[in-house]
């Protein structure tokens, strides 16, 4: 007998038959999704379709009840070790930024590296400044989040995730809470990240961004993945009527 060779999964994220209920409400129905290393997936769909819930299941902000979720080959279970292992590989950017208002920008960025990773303060600050430069706001390091514009806050939030050097970044409508003139400064940072090969799952209705970076488009409705494919197929010839209707609505304005 030859030793069994475990083929190491090349998938960064793998969801198989994931189901989730909020009480009796079936919010996710048989979700299958795989995201390769370096791949960018854009999820869109009407409000309440379950986009946030899918993304939040990937780093256990929500618990799924059926199916399997793997991140970098590690299965997400109730074992706190598996949750911690997966969270250390997955960063998340929220619609509402969720910066820590009582800490400076620099402290927001160094908290995780120092407390969760055991880095020294000077190491963590050097890393924080590096990523603040990447998002073009090193000069704001000593300010509090409340003193920054929305666009700046979201860029700080992206830098905070990057400071944990995750393999995967999740974005849940990162530009929906922003004034129109600030959307592009955040999208520009995300495009750069994408070009550098970060694995990204992005919930957004910014279809210009999607066309530019997406390798895979996912359309959700009522807890299901209704349509899934390359941006060319997706925008060129959407098959399902629900997706066609959604796209015509969203591309109108």
């Amino acid at each position: 007998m030859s030793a069994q060779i475990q083929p190491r999964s090349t998938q960064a994220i793998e969801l198989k038959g994931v189901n989730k209920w909020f009480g009796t409400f079936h919010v996710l129905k048989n979700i299958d999704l795989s995201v390769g290393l370096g791949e960018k997936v854009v999820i869109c769909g009407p409000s309440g379709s379950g986009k946030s819930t899918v993304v939040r299941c990937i780093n256990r902000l929500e618990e799924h009840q059926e199916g399997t979720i793997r991140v970098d080959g590690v299965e997400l279970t109730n074992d706190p070790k598996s949750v911690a292992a997966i969270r250390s590989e997955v960063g998340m950017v929220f619609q509402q930024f969720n910066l820590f208002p009582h800490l400076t920008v620099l402290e927001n960025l160094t908290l995780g590296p120092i407390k969760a990773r055991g880095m020294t303060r000077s190491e963590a600050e050097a890393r924080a400044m590096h990523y603040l430069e990447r998002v073009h706001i090193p000069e704001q390091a000593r300010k509090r989040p409340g003193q920054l514009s929305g666009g700046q806050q979201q860029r700080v939030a992206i830098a905070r995730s990057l400071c944990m050097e995750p393999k995967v970044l999740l974005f849940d409508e990162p530009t929906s809470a922003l004034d129109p003139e600030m959307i592009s400064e955040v999208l520009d940072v995300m495009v750069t990240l994408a070009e550098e090969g970060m694995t990204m799952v992005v919930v957004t209705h910014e279809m210009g961004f999607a066309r530019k970076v997406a390798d895979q488009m996912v359309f959700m409705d009522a807890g299901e993945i209704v349509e899934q494919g390359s941006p060319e197929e997706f925008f060129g010839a959407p098959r399902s009527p629900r997706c066609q209707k959604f796209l015509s609505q969203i591309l109108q304005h």
Partner: protein
Amino acid sequence: MKKLLLLALPILALSGCSSSSTWGWYVINPMTPGGWINIKFLISGMGDTILISVIAAVLSIVVGLVVALPGLSKKRGWRLVNRVYVEFIRSIPLLPMLFWVFYGLPIIFREMGLNIPIDPFWGAVITLALSDSAFTAEIYRAGIQSIAKGQTEAAQTIGLNYLQTMRYVILPQAIRRILPPLANQFIYIVKMSAFASVIGMQELTRRANELVVTEYRPLEIYTLLILEYLVLVLIISAGVRWLERRMGSDERG
């Protein structure tokens, strides 16, 4: 402080003409040797009142937090532990609890083969801390719940564990909402410490009672007693306002 002097003025005036009236302010007239001795006797209870209150408050602040945390859990079992403790302790009137702790608890200790005597001082401290902890727990719970869920989620996504999330993210923000009601509870403890007189603790109220028995001047002596509590409470209030101002400037800085 000005208010206090205004209140004290008429009393001083009355004490001056005590001999020619039915008032008996001479019992606490600092100008006469007898009055001065009485005042010293009454005021020397201040130390015990303060010590009992401070120790009870510190214990209550610690126990309250320990009781509050399970109340914030997602698991129903933990929340139940919190509810049972709070509802049970909150429903016991202070005096019966004091009797139970002072006269009853030593019997339990003896049955368990422990030689832990409970003197009036510790009887009062334990009772006040226990009784207050149910209220402190509710204050913590409300304060922590007032911090947006996104803060906990952001902390989790940068790898902080439960205690780190509480310590570095939630409590520093919640403390501003927790502190004012906690200060109210401290004032409540100071006032309730008067019950310690019932089990023989020679604090402010007990001393006033003892003097009334020998001098038979209840109005004058109890008036002074009330003023003693007033001074204590005013000092605490001033201290809390100072603390609040300091923390307020912290946030802006």
